[in-house]
């Protein structure tokens, strides 16, 4: 029995890493998209911003698909309860992800309706970024569950203040991620506007992150004894302080890493509040779905571990290779 617990903990960690990878990578392209109306002055600037994410967003989204698959494989009850329970919210996530994906392609090939496809691109990206945080907030904060592990709330259960703080904090972090990516990938006026966006967003993130950490410790007093929570705060503080210095020096590469660092801190704090629950039952702690009562069998977890521990380093290897192919400043005519 103890053996399977090791694998349940391993899989909890791996799924967190997959979702974190998704947050950092798709985070910057959702963020760039959300900022399009603010940063992209003319069509050429917008083309440049989209060109900076065009070759990589597809691969970034696979982190979500793989995280979802891993959740299904390791903790099927969590996957089943959350996805069916949050049905309408999940449909909105899908709507947002569909539009943000196709809009780039349609915008490039359908000049008559550029404006429309920009709106769906921006709206889809921002909505997706917001909803992911709200969903995570709900499973951590807790939702009503029945004794068959089924969700017993409604759509409006999902919109309580605590999960919404998660959503807004995540959205702010995603947009900062996008702005700092834009700083790294652009030049001239566009870069100057991106620097300004990073400055404003760093300020916003100081506020949202502070509210988020205070809310966490107030909601989950047990966190005061959790080392990971303090490590998380250090990560986020270090990232945001680093951003202030990088902005002064007009360093165009460091902000992206500092923003990522700050985002990792937010994520670690969430995981500290979460573990070992995966979906907290707000009505009765005994009904919570934990990593221990919602997982698949030992053999499945072992097979999956072999696939992931061999496969993911290879994935990360060729992902770095492809990012290096596209390193340097993006050009408007990189876009087809």
């Amino acid at each position: 029995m103890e053996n399977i617990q090791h694998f349940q903990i391993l899989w909890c960690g791996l799924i967190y890493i997959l979702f974190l990878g998704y947050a950092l990578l798709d985070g910057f392209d959702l963020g760039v998209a959300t900022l399009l109306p603010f940063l992209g002055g003319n069509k050429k600037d917008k083309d440049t911003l989209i060109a900076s994410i065009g070759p990589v967003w597809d691969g970034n989204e696979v982190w979500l698909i793989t995280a979802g698959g891993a959740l299904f494989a390791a903790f099927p009850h969590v996957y089943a309860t959350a996805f069916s329970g949050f049905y309408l919210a999940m449909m909105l996530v899908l709507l947002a992800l569909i539009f943000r994906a196709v809009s780039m392609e349609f915008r490039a090939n359908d000049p008559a309706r550029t404006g429309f496809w920009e709106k769906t691109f921006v709206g889809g990206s921002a909505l997706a970024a917001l909803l992911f945080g709200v969903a995570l907030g709900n499973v951590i904060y807790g939702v009503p569950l029945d004794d068959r592990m089924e969700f017993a709330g409604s759509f409006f259960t999902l919109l309580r203040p605590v999960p919404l703080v998660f959503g807004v904090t995540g959205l702010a972090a995603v947009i900062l991620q996008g702005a700092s990516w834009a700083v790294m990938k652009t030049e001239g006026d566009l870069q100057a506007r991106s620097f300004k966006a990073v400055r404003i967003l760093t300020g916003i993130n100081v506020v949202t992150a502070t509210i988020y950490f205070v809310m966490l410790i107030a909601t989950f007093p047990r966190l005061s004894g959790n080392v990971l929570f303090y490590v998380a705060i250090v990560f986020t503080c270090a990232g945001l302080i680093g951003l202030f210095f990088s902005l002064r020096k007009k360093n165009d590469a460091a902000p992206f890493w500092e923003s990522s660092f700050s985002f990792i801190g937010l994520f670690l704090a969430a995981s500290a509040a979460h573990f070992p629950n995966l979906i907290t039952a707000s009505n009765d702690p005994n009904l919570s779905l934990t990593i221990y009562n919602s997982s698949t069998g030992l053999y499945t977890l072992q097979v999956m571990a072999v696939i992931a521990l061999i496969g993911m380093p290879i994935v990360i290897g060729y992902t770095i290779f492809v990012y290096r192919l596209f390193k340097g400043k993006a050009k408007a005519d990189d876009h087809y």
Partner: protein
Amino acid sequence: MDALLLARIQFAFTIGFHFLFPAMTLGTALVILISETLHLIKKEDVYRRITDFFARLLGLIFVIGAATGIVMEFSFGTNWSEYSRAVGDIFGPILAAEGVIAFFLESVFVGVLIFGRKRVSAKVYWVAALMVFLGGHLSAFWIIVANSWMQTPAGYEISAAGKIVLNSFSDAVFNPSTIVRFLHTVLASWVTCAVMVSGIAGYYVRKGLHDQTARTMLKIGVVLFAITPLVQLGAAHAHAIQVINTQPVKAAAMEGHFHTTRGADIYVLGYVDAANEKTYGISIPKGLSFLYNFDFNSEIKGLNDYPKDNWPPLNLVFQSYHIMVGLGMIFIALGLLGALLLWTGKIYTAKWYLFLLPFLIPLPHVAHETGWITAEVGRQPWIIYGLMKTAAASSVVVSAGELIFSLAMFTLVYLLLFVMFILLFVKIIKQGPAAS
């Protein structure tokens, strides 16, 4: 309408729409790999123009495939949560493996294919083409594994608590129908693209557009069009034998075959009257028995050997199957005709054949959609053949009202995607490959 029926309609609609795109992706990746390999070997610019043209089309096809594919991954949790709870041990790892082993590869390198021409060397570009081809086909492999496990489950045991537990991953992956269904599906995709390439190139040649580029494109298309439906005939036959052996009820429904007999007839066209348990139509005496193992008197199990509760909707399965087979035969004939015209050097002036080609483009889609209807409706009433009924698989907390909302949403959004796809597909074809 009840929630179960709505969930089934939504799944059928969203998966049917999604499959149009991966069916084009795999074949397009093959054509790109062929033309880019020729480009690397022969160093002729015409192949580069062909690659670039299809990479542009791939960009459009792939993005809609990816966007509608994520809906499918979510749908097991959103709409089929009881299924997900029951099969997490087996179905989950297969989907996760698809992500780690296949879809990452395809998605990461598709960016290079579409955006990387000016940034990378010819060799790196070729590697990207190879990786997209491999990633796409591996992705198809894992998805077919998942679906085949639902058709012919293996590698599991039922635990004391009544749960489905994985006991051999390799048996689950290589279950009795995986390999033959993978080949059948991949070949269907290659046929789809062979016809698409031939259709586009045929239009160019007939209109006198794009000179050498169009003629080379036509040659690639027609050669594939001649070969792939023929190879498919072999794979299809092997698949049919597998269905007769492992899913006899489905096989009997496909053929409208009620009574277990030796020397069973095969229907070329017909109609199944399920209520009166009779099939009407044009049949070839003893044809079915002959095709089963090349013995006119082999025994074929009929539907009457099985309880009526376990029959799928008979006429739908019968008609879908026969439409698919009929189209397959047409593809074989027209592909061979194209090869003959190419061999005799008459194809570039055979106006009627060139005129016909573009109109064929939708037909392979009809064939693979009806093929999937045969496979999936033919499995009913089971979601996992012999193990779990579809009626027990849907989400218990999702109401009919929520399903009406989501079904309306997908209908509107997919209609928009479909219209945009057709408009942009035609537009890219009209713009054509770069001038020489």
